[in-house]
C-alpha cells in the first residue's frame, strides 16, 4: 500500500466496520421485532447498512489489494475499527431505537463531510448514500417523536436509553488512526472533533424539540414524570458512570472516561466477542466458499 493511502485506508476501514457491525446488530431483529412492520424496517435497514459496508470495503480494496470479503470477514477481533456503540447488544426496544437515532444522525454528519472529500470515489458514494439514509433518519426520528409524545413509560425508557447510548455513541467520533494524514490529504475534510461538535449540537436539538429533557451530566439524567397512577417510575437501570457530556463556553466537552471510546484503535468490549465469532464463522471455516 502506498504510504499516502494510510489516512484514506484508515478512514474507509472505520466507516465500513461501523456499517457492517451495526448492520449485523440490526439484522438480529429479523423475526423478533415487536411487530411485522418493524421486523421489515430493521431487516431493510440492516440490508442497506451491510450493502454500504460492502461498498466501503470495495473502495478500500482498490487501495489495499485484499478482496472485500477478506477485509470484512478475514480479520482478528482486534483488527476491527468500528465504534463500540455498534457492537453493543440490541438490548431492549428503547435502546435499539435510541442507538438507531444517534447512529443515523452521525452518519448524516459524516457523509455530508465526506461528500467534500478529495478522494472522488468517496465523495461520489457519499452523495449517493445520503439519499438512501434519509429513510433511516425518517424512521428513527418518527420513533423518537412517537415515544416522546406517548405514555410516560415509553418516554422514560427512551430518555434513559438515549443517555446510555449517547455515552457510547460519542465514540463514533473518536479520532481515526492516521487522522492527521487523512486531514493533510483532504481525504477527510473535517477533524473528528469538528464532526463530534456538529453531531452533538444536532442530536441534542432534535431530542429537545421532541420534548425530552436530557441531563447528560447527571447520574440519572432523564426527567422523571409521574405515571398515570401518580407514582414515579423506577429508573430502568443504573446509568451511573464517572463521565459526562456538557455544553460549556460555546462547545461540547466530554469529561471522564466515556464507555464508547477505544473502538477506533481496535480495543473492543466483551460484547464484540460473540458477535465476531458469529459474523466470521462461515468465512473462517471455508474462506474460499462463495454464496
Amino acid at each position, binding site marked *: 500500500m502506498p504510504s499516502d493511502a494510510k489516512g484514506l485506508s484508515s478512514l474507509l476501514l472505520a466507516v465500513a466496520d461501523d456499517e457492517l457491525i451495526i448492520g449485523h446488530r440490526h439484522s438480529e431483529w429479523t423475526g423478533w421485532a415487536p411487530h411485522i*412492520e418493524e421486523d421489515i424496517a430493521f431487516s431493510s*435497514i440492516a*440490508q442497506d447498512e451491510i*450493502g454500504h459496508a460492502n461498498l466501503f470495503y470495495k473502495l478500500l480494496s482498490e487501495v489495499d489489494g485484499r478482496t472485500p470479503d477478506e477485509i470484512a470477514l478475514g480479520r482478528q477481533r482486534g483488527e476491527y475499527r468500528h465504534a463500540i456503540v455498534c457492537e453493543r447488544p440490541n438490548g431492549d426496544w428503547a435502546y435499539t431505537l435510541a442507538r438507531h437515532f444517534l447512529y443515523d444522525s452521525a452518519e448524516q454528519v459524516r457523509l455530508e463531510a465526506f461528500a467534500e472529500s478529495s478522494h472522488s470515489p468517496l465523495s461520489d458514494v457519499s*452523495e*449517493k448514500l445520503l*439519499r*438512501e439514509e434519509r*429513510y433511516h433518519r425518517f*424512521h428513527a426520528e418518527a420513533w423518537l417523536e412517537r415515544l416522546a409524545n406517548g405514555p410516560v413509560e415509553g418516554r422514560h425508557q427512551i430518555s434513559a436509553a438515549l443517555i446510555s447510548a449517547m455515552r457510547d455513541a460519542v465514540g463514533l467520533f473518536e479520532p481515526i488512526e492516521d487522522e492527521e494524514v487523512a486531514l493533510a490529504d483532504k481525504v477527510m475534510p473535517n477533524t473528528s472533533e469538528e464532526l463530534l461538535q456538529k453531531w452533538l449540537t444536532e442530536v441534542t436539538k432534535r431530542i429537545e424539540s421532541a420534548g425530552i429533557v436530557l441531563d447528560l451530566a447527571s447520574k440519572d439524567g432523564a426527567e422523571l414524570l409521574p405515571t398515570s397512577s401518580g407514582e414515579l417510575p423506577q429508573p430502568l437501570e443504573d446509568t451511573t458512570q464517572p463521565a459526562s457530556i456538557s455544553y460549556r463556553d460555546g462547545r461540547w466537552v466530554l469529561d471522564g472516561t466515556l464507555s464508547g471510546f477505544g473502538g477506533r484503535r481496535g480495543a473492543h468490549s466483551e460484547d464484540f466477542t460473540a458477535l465476531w465469532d458469529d459474523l466470521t464463522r462461515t468465512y473462517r471455516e471455508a474462506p474460499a466458499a462463495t454464496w
Partner: protein
Amino acid sequence: MVTATSISKAQVLEALEGVKDPEIPAVSVLDLGIVEKIQIDGVRVAITCLPTFVGCPALDMIREDIESALAEIGATAEVNFVFRPPWTSDRISEEGKRKLLEYGLAPPPAGNTVALTLMAPGKCPYCGSADTILESPFGPTACRATCYCRSCRNPFEQFKQI
C-alpha cells in the same frame, strides 16, 4: 448465439430492453434509467450502469443478465457500475412509471421531496384513490415502501422516491 463482426446501438438497446429488474420483472433496465452510457467497439460493448439502491442484491444479477443478453446477440459486454451521477427515481421513464403502475406498484413521485412523499404516498395502483397512507417507509425490497388505501382497503407498495 450468432456470430457478428459488429453490433449496432439499436441491437444493444433491443437486448437491454429484454433485461428486466429481477425483483420487478415488469420493467427493464432501460425503463429504470439504470443504463448511463453505452460504448460500442466492434462486438465489444462497454455499459456503464448506475446502482439504484447500493445494498440491492439484484445488482449482481442485473450485471449477469446484461452480459448474457448481449452474448445472445454475439456481443461481449463489460458492465461497470458508477456512482456519479447518483441514480435517482426521476430517471425512471414515463413508460417505466406506467409499467410499474400496471404491475401494481405506485410509481415514485417526481423530485426530491422525501419528507412530503412519506406523508402522502400517492394514488392507489388498484383503485386510483388519493386517500392513501404510508404504513412504513420500508418494504419487501430496498426500493419499496408499504402503503394502504383507505378507499379500496388494499395494502399496496410504492417504488420509493430517492
